[in-house]
Structures are given as structure tokens and as C-alpha cells.
């Protein structure tokens, strides 16, 4: 791969629909962790549930809007179910239960029993559910080159998906900004800083936490649908590592900030492409084969997460005084 090609790839990754989908999911997590201080370690579960809800509804003949509604309702119920036993307990209980529940969704989805509904471990093919969304595309049905980058007009990872997903990200970033500075958002920040103080003011902390969990989860489900438009519904791509990536990119950009999730997602995915590309260029094949580049890049992600939390927990955009991660 030459250097110009790598640059094109890296810049394409900056505005790719996957980047937008992860940014949206991270905005959801920002409601949980950034605003309320909830440790949701099962965000990929919300995403997977969302894409299952959408894909199955559309495949069985439902309309696109019904599919989105089903996905949101599923995520809402999932949030309520998880929050019910754990939100009254210490933070790490929520972490353990959410990660367990997300894995449960994945195991159930890929099990042989559910094969007729969820497609087992192979998942659901894109052609089964993408048609209604792609039919709405105003772009012509061919490859279009804008600037350096060539993408298809309307199918799969397309310019249409780019436009829709970044609009969604913009809308929800705006929503986050509005809600975070509302009286409701101030109560959530209070819960994050000192739960007992908020309780002594007569607020129902449990209800506020539950609202944040549900809203963030629903946004996560929408992020999952966006992701599935560019790829396919596959349970194994929504395992624990996905949740950890979302955490990394949220902490990288800066939790509790409006643009943190977006900046984090762009940097995270661009950096992954750059690391893999540079490794391919500069490290000879005898030292690192092509299949070893992916784990190598992900080792750096893990190390980056550790260093971030230790040395700069507020991320790039965050304010250290505002957000100190505490137990």
C-alpha cells in the first residue's frame, strides 16, 4: 500500500458510517457514564438488540418506522430490566450485570434454538432488511466519487448512509447538549457527583438513574441500527470488545462533553486504520504477518485505554474539575 492510498483510507474512515454509528452509540453511553456516572459495560448488548429488533421486523414485512420503533422499545425494556435490580446497588453491580446481560443477548441470538428468528451465529444478511432504507435514497444507484473518495450512491456503506448517520449524530449531539443543561440534566450531574446530596434534596435518584439508563440505551440501539446498515447483523461482532471500544473512544474524546464522543470515534477509527497501514508498510512480513496486524492494533487500543484512565481521565475535550471518575 502506498502512502497516498493510506491517507485516502484514513480520511475515508473519518466520515465513514461505522464511525458515525459508534459516535452515536458513544453519545448514548455519554448519557449513562458522562452525565449520570452509570457503569454500563454492556452497551454492545443494546446495539445488538436494536439491530435484531429492526432487522427482524423489516424481514417479516414490517415497515422501516415500525422496525425502528420495535428496536427502541426493546432497548427500553432491556434498560428497565437491567436497572430494576441494580440501580439501587453499588456501581460495580451494574457493571457486572450489564456485561452479563449483553453477553446473554449475544449467546441467545447465536444459539441454535433461535436460528429461525435470529439466524444463529451467521446472523441476518443485509439483503433481508436494508431494502426499505436504501429505497429512500435520493442518490443515483451507482458508484459516486466526491473528492478523493469513491462510495456507492445508495447501497450498503453509501453516501446516503453517510448523510443519514451524521445527521443522526448531529441531532443527538444537540439533544445531549439541550438535556445536559436542562434542570433534568443538572440533577443527573448531581447524582454523578454525590448521590446522597441529591437524595437529601428530595429527588428520586433511582428514577433519574433509570431514565438516563433507558435514554442512553435507546440511543445505543439506534447506533446499532446504523451500524447494521453498513454491515450485517452478526452477534459476534457485538461482543464485549465492542463495548470496550466504545468506552475507549468516549474516554478519549472526553466524557460529559457534547463533542467528545464524536471526536473520540473519529480519532479511534482513523488511528486504527493508520496503525494497521503503517504496520503493513514498515514492519516486514517476517516479523508480523498480515493476520497479526489486527491484534497488534487492538493491543495499542487496550494500552491507550489504560493510559487514558490513569493520566487523563477527562479525555481530550473534558474538564478535569468537572468529571473526576470516582467510586
Amino acid at each position, binding site marked *: 500500500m502506498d502512502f497516498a492510498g493510506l491517507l485516502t483510507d484514513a480520511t475515508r474512515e473519518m466520515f465513514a458510517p461505522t464511525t458515525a454509528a459508534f459516535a452515536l452509540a458513544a453519545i448514548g453511553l455519554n448519557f449513562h457514564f458522562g452525565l449520570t456516572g452509570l457503569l454500563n459495560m454492556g452497551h454492545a448488548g443494546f446495539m445488538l438488540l436494536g439491530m435484531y429488533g429492526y432487522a427482524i421486523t423489516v424481514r417479516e414485512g414490517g415497515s422501516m418506522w415500525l422496525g425502528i420503533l420495535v428496536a427502541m422499545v426493546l432497548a427500553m425494556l432491556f434498560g428497565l430490566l437491567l436497572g430494576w435490580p441494580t440501580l439501587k*446497588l*453499588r456501581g460495580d453491580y451494574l*457493571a457486572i450485570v450489564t*456485561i452479563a446481560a449483553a453477553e446473554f443477548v449475544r*449467546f441467545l441470538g447465536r444459539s441454535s*434454538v433461535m436460528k429461525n428468528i435470529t439466524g444463529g451465529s451467521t446472523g441476518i444478511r443485509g439483503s433481508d432488511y436494508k431494502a426499505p432504507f436504501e429505497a429512500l435514497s435520493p442518490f443515483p444507484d451507482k458508484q459516486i466519487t466526491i473528492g478523493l473518495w469513491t462510495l456507492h450512491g445508495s447501497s450498503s456503506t453509501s453516501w446516503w448512509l453517510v448523510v443519514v448517520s451524521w445527521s443522526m449524530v448531529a441531532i443527538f449531539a444537540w439533544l445531549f447538549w439541550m438535556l445536559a443543561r436542562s434542570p433534568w440534566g443538572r440533577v443527573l450531574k448531581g447524582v454523578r457527583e454525590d448521590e446522597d446530596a441529591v437524595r437529601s434534596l428530595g429527588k428520586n435518584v433511582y428514577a433519574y438513574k433509570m431514565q438516563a439508563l433507558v435514554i442512553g440505551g435507546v440511543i445505543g440501539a439506534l447506533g446499532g441500527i446504523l451500524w447494521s446498515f453498513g454491515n450485517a447483523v452478526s452477534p459476534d461482532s457485538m461482543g464485549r470488545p465492542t463495548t470496550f471500544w466504545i468506552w475507549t473512544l468516549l474516554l478519549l474524546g472526553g466524557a460529559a462533553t457534547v463533542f467528545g464522543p464524536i471526536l473520540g470515534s473519529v480519532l479511534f477509527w482513523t488511528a486504527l486504520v493508520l496503525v494497521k497501514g503503517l504496520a503493513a508498510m514498515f514492519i516486514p512480513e517476517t516479523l508480523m504477518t498480515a493476520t497479526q496486524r489486527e491484534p497488534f492494533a487492538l493491543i495499542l*487500543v*487496550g494500552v491507550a*485505554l489504560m493510559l487514558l484512565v490513569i493520566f487523563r481521565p477527562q479525555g481530550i475535550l473534558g474538564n478535569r474539575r468537572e468529571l473526576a*471518575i470516582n467510586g
Partner: protein
Amino acid sequence: MTTTIDRRVIVRAIVVFLLAAAVITVISVIMSDSAQATDTATHVVAADTSSGDSTTTATTTATAGTNRILQSLVNGLAFGTLLALASVGLSLIYGTTGLSNFAHGEQVSFGAVLTYFLVTPQPVTIPFVPVSFTIGLPLVVGAIIAIAVSAGTGWLQDKFLWSPLRRRGVGTVQQMIVSIGLSLAMLNFIQWWVGGGRFRLTIEIDQPISLGLVTIGRTTLISLVIALACLGGVSWFLLKTRLGRATRAVSDNPALASASGIQVGKIIRLVWIIAAGLAGLGGILLGLYEEGTAFDAGARLLMLMFAAVTLGGLGQAFGALVGSLVIGVVAEMSTIWLPADLKVAVALVILILVLLVRPQGILGRAERVG
């Protein structure tokens, strides 16, 4: 920390177990309905054991049924014992430092993978070193070296990562996220090292030994003896030695322990060494039990470990033991009614149910949960 397993605890464990069995039955009924309505070919559940439809086969299915239940019980106890090796360490770390260590699964994988690296007759490589070579040690020697190195990684981790973090006053939540980063890095490092395939620690085939109604592999039996000896050793250490008493004191109240002259830092270092060593041993024995291991073997176990530890009561070493046995038995028993690929899912449902009715776990104390 509770020092003995009294009768109350056993009753509680049985109640949890019965509750889980009831839930599995309900799920299996719902599942079998939906599966039969759509497709029966993929349905591998032997639901017909309870409803012997033809009189000629009724007796044989009945005996096969009890056999299967007994066999699953034995398998579950074996798996639970091996799981306990890994989860006791997780629980000890939580008890003494308050950290939910998400990288503990990778400690398990590390033990198994290192053993493979040392004993396999195939040529092996190290990342960034373009030379392949063969080590091919005997299994026992390789396993002992692997356990020692595992314990060494525990020491290294605490010395260079966790104890500086504690000294800086980094919160437990922050430490938990650090452990997630470490788990991601270690998982991918192991994948880079040995690749994504599945490999066996020994080429010997486990010879089954028949014990009346149930059979158990010879290697499994030896593994169980080793595991029980180690768990017994840890219990003896915790209950009877001075250092063990000090460990329990730190687990109960670090500040008070420190004030009464116990060197908390040293105790925690010791706990890390023990936990990492036990996890390595658990990984090796599980690799033998399941006749294969992989770079993500421990990562897949992590959820079961957390379920066991939470079930027994976070931070209770003996709770982890009881919890592991319950989880092991329930997971194996569930395969009688449910397909094997839902084994882990069942354990996770139990975890959530336990948190609903008894968040402090079987051995935990109610007042510690806020």
C-alpha cells in the same frame, strides 16, 4: 469474611439451585414450544425423557434419563471445582482491594497458552522474533513452569501497575476501567502470540473410567484431585496461618488491619501472586478437561467467574467456591433440557436473578451493599 461453611449456607445454596432449576424448566418449555412451531430439525434437546411415549422404550429412556442427570451432575461438579480455582483468586482480589478485575480471564488463558507453548512438539514463535523453535517439555514440568510464571505476572502487575495506582489514590471504578484496558491488551497479545486457532495441551486421549452409573476421564480425575488439593491448601492458608488471618483482616477492613500492624501492601501483593497462580493452574486444568484451549478461553470463562463470585458474595473467598460449584452444576445440568450453546446464558440468567432476590450473594452480609 465468613470463616466456616455452616448449615444456613448450604440451605441457601440449595434454594438458589432449586430456583435455577425451576427457571430453566420454564425457559425450556417456552423454548421448545417456539422451536417446535418453527423447526424441529435443529432442536437437539432431549425433551422426551420425561414423556416416554411408547411403553417398550419407557424403561430404557428412564434409566438413560437418570444416568444423564447423574452424569451431568458429576460433570457439573468437576467443572465447578475447576472454575473455583479461577474465581477464588478473583474474589480474593476483590475482597482485599475492591477491584473487579476484568483481566482475570486473561490470566486463565495465559496459564493454558504458556503451557501449550512449553510442551507442544510443534515449532513455536514469540512475537517480534522471526525464529521458530521447539521446546517440547513434558506436560507436568511445563505446567509447573507456567504456573510459576503466571504467579510471577501477578507479582509484576501488582508491583508496577496496581500498587502505584493505589498509592496515587485512584478510585476503584477507575481501576476497573484500567483492568478492562489491560484485558483488551492481554487478550490481543495472546492472540498475536499463538494465533486464533484451538489447540490441545496433550495428545493423549482421556481414558474414561466407569464408576457405576457415571463415567469420568482419568485425566479429569487427576485434575480434580489437584484442584481440590489446591483449594484445600488455600482454605488452610486462609483459616489456619497467620498470613491467612492477616489476609482476612485486610479483606474485612484495610484501615483497621493497617492500624493493628499488618502490612497491607505486602498482603495485597501476596494475594495477587496467589490469585494469578491459581488462575494459571485453573486455565491448564480446564484446558485438559475440555480437551483444548484457545486464546480466548479465559475471556469466555470470565462471565461465569463473575457469576460465581457474585453468587457467593463479592469478596468472600469461600463464597466463590460455593458459587462456582452451583454455577458449574447448573450450567451442566441445563444441557439436559437446553442446547449446549446456551450453557453460559443460563449461568448469566442465574446471576441476574440472584441480584434481584439476594444482591449480597449466598455468603455475603446484607449491610455491605448500599
